[in-house]
């Protein structure tokens, strides 16, 4: 594909950052990715009048840098981010109402399913297992 070529080295631009940047560019430019020894080469062709291919590639590069840094920050602050997001959504949503509970498939076939193993006592789950017949007690 014709266009401006931009190399994004993997040490600075993880593939996720490249993808995130490319995704936000798809309405404004045609973006084609190829591997290079150092990372990824993006060929960028602008869709917009007045915006050159070089400018579009530069915008992609800016966005890739922002995304790479954002991913770095997110990795470090993951627990805080998850705590806030969970609290925000849970606080806004609130507990399920009667209509939702009634919609849940709780019938004879599923009522006693225990996918999380919470119906098991701690001893059953983690305690010493009794010796099998013929073996010594552990």
């Amino acid at each position, binding site marked *: *594909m014709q266009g401006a070529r931009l190399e994004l080295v993997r040490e600075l631009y993880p593939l996720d950052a490249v*993808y995130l940047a490319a995704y936000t560019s798809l309405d404004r430019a045609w973006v084609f990715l190829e*591997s290079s020894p150092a990372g990824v080469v993006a060929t960028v*062709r602008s869709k917009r009048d007045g915006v050159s291919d070089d400018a579009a590639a530069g915008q992609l590069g800016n966005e890739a840098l922002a995304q790479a840094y954002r991913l770095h920050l997110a990795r470090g602050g993951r627990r805080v981010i998850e705590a806030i997001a969970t609290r925000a959504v849970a606080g806004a949503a609130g507990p399920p109402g009667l209509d939702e509970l009634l919609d849940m498939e709780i019938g004879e076939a599923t009522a006693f399913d225990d996918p999380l193993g919470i119906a098991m006592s701690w001893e059953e789950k983690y305690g010493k297992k009794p010796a099998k017949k013929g073996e010594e007690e552990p």
Partner: protein
Amino acid sequence: MIELRFEETLYDGFAIDEAAKTFEPFATIDREREGGAFILRVTLAESAAADGHAEADVAAELANHALGKTIERRGAAP
């Protein structure tokens, strides 16, 4: 005819299939898999040419669609 070479390390096969299907009304698309890449050979349909579409643009849009779908499938979409 325009040949697009989608490296398997960068593009998802299902995404490419979906992109190719989406653009079938606009072009004849021959697919091949070779040397770690999905190769699509795109030839503009006569009806699309009559409507004023350029082969290079249709190929580029198909590639964009494949990239977008790849990113969505990967779960990296923002």
